[in-house]
């Protein structure tokens, strides 16, 4: 047990058990939660019913979806699964008392156990979660938690700024990685090393560009989530089992984080090493400080459930309805293929090329033959094994996929830039900007490439525009203009 939980328990129940429970129940201190929220009344009862007021940092449901596609690996579009998740989301919202809540549910091609919501009410759940969750109620729990952040108006300008800050810092780290790779005098080794390092950066990005809720916000979302589950007829204990899965994942993830840090240290480039270590550690610490320990969240959720609903007969988690969806042949094959793609990526990172190739070939087939992520992985694996034509055709399939993946555009820009084809690189930068709703991350690329193309005046204008329209990116744009 973690120290925080021990502190919590140490003040509990000094009363002896010398008689029946009813006799001394009243003597027990009501320890409960660390703040008053949820102690006397349920969070749902305190939620003001009526029309939902959109967050001031909302950018529009569709635009938000387009921007979130710029997450490294994009979305997994599986209509039946999305429909199922949307149905649960609607059922949870129906009992919230709020009307007009915008948003949709999307599945991210991510092997991290995570989910997040945005100011526009959209909920993003990772493929890993879909694989790990074991019943209808756990799926409802993760959606209830995320929708609670939306209903409680947790998406504020401060949070948005923090996410943006971390996004920029990681972008800068990626930029330094590219510079390091491009400056390497030994192409074959440097290329491989650079690829590994870039992949490390992507993994870090995947981990950290998520909202880092405060302890209070996270707790509130858990507890309101419990209320929503109960009112919507789901089993509230699924909130606990879902959090237990998160805790299990975090334990594994800690080992992976340490491995990531070790890999950063192995890059051989001292300045990058230092920068990478500092930025990564700093970001990780920032998230850790704000984020409550999952152990505490589990205990607080259990205490809340017992306090407000302990006398009720609670619904049991139901495996059947979830199993019926994930075992449908069309859904199951997509899940298997993404799992294979993740495994192929991991095998590649561990130097098991043939194993990676075998998994990647299977991943980029059947219903996911034209999906971006499995093809990106196949392209990388084929490239590493020297199967260059196959690598190129996989990359072409990835870029032509219905769901765009930012990483593909990054790679294409990078490949063309390194081979001196600046015009082509600029073309892909413009296209990426269009595809991802003018996301500012493409601006520094454009400025840098304009300068390389000798179009210095245009680069200066683009830098000014960047500073004015996206002041948060000013420094990076100015830096690109000094390339």
């Amino acid at each position: 047990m973690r120290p925080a939980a021990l502190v919590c328990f140490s003040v509990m129940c000094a009363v002896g058990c010398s008689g029946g429970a009813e006799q001394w129940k009243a003597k027990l201190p009501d320890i409960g939660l660390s703040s008053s929220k949820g102690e006397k009344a349920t969070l749902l009862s305190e939620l003001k019913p009526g029309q939902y007021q959109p967050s001031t940092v909302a950018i529009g449901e569709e635009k938000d979806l387009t921007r979130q596609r710029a997450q490294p690996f994009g979305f997994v579009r599986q209509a039946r699964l999305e429909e199922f998740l949307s149905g649960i989301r609607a059922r949870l919202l129906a009992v919230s008392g709020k009307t007009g809540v915008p948003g949709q549910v999307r599945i991210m091609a991510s092997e991290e156990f995570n989910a997040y919501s945005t100011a526009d009410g959209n909920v993003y759940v990772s493929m890993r979660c879909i694989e790990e969750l074991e019943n209808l109620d756990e799926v409802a729990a993760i959606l209830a938690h995320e929708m609670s952040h939306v209903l409680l108006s947790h998406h504020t300008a401060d949070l948005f700024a923090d996410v943006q800050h971390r996004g920029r810092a990681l972008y800068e780290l990626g930029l330094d990685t590219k510079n390091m790779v491009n400056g390497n005098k030994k192409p074959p080794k440097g290329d491989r090393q650079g690829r590994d390092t870039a992949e490390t950066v992507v993994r870090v990005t995947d981990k950290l560009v998520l909202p880092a809720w405060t302890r209070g916000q996270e707790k509130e979302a858990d507890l309101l989530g419990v209320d929503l589950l109960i009112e919507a007829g789901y089993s509230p204990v699924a909130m606990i089992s879902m959090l237990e899965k998160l805790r299990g994942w975090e334990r594994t993830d800690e080992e992976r984080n340490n491995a990531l840090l070790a890999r950063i240290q192995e890059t051989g480039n001292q300045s990058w090493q230092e920068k990478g270590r500092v930025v990564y550690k700093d970001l990780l610490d920032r998230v850790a400080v704000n984020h409550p320990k999952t152990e505490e969240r589990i205990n607080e959720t259990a205490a809340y459930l017992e306090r407000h609903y302990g006398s009720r007969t609670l619904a049991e988690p139901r495996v059947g309805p979830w199993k019926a969806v994930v075992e449908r042949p069309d859904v199951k094959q997509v899940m298997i293929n993404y799992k294979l793609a993740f495994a192929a990526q991991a095998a590649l990172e561990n130097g098991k090329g043939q194993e990676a190739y075998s998994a990647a070939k299977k991943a980029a087939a059947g219903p996911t033959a034209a999906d971006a992520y499995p093809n990106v992985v196949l392209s990388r694996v084929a490239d590493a094994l020297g199967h260059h034509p196959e690598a190129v055709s996989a990359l072409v399939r990835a870029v032509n996929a219905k769901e765009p993946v930012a990483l593909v555009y990054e790679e294409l820009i990078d490949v063309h830039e390194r081979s001196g084809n600046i015009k082509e690189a600029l073309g892909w930068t413009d296209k990426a900007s269009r595809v991802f709703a003018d996301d500012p991350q493409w601006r520094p690329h454009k400025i840098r490439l304009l300068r390389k193309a000798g179009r210095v005046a245009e680069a200066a204008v683009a830098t000014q525009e960047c500073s004015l329209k996206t002041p948060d990116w000013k420094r990076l744009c100015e830096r690109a203009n000094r390339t």
Partner: protein
Amino acid sequence: MGSAAAADELQITNLRGNSVDLFGCDDLSKSVWRVSQSEFRGPGKFRGPWPATKEPDKPMFLRVVVNGDRYCVKAYLVEANTPVPATSAGGECQPKGGKQSKPAFSRGVGEGCR
């Protein structure tokens, strides 16, 4: 610890929260005892870990043996040393092997469903 239960036996190893009510398994509406953390960890008759088994007809509860007597506890308020067999809800799953520490409520509505 208080019990000489076999290592692979299901045991309650931790109470989640301030205290846990022990119910009579034939009347789950009535709390018979309330056991605090200090009692669970202390030397008295409520000392843990408690041997436990699944209540087939009442999947939200676990049957425990405390000081030789049988009671039922709410599964979400305790942690166990090993996965608990699946609830009756799905019906499709069987318990998995393995001895890793696992909270009681991770019972598998799913354990063994892979």
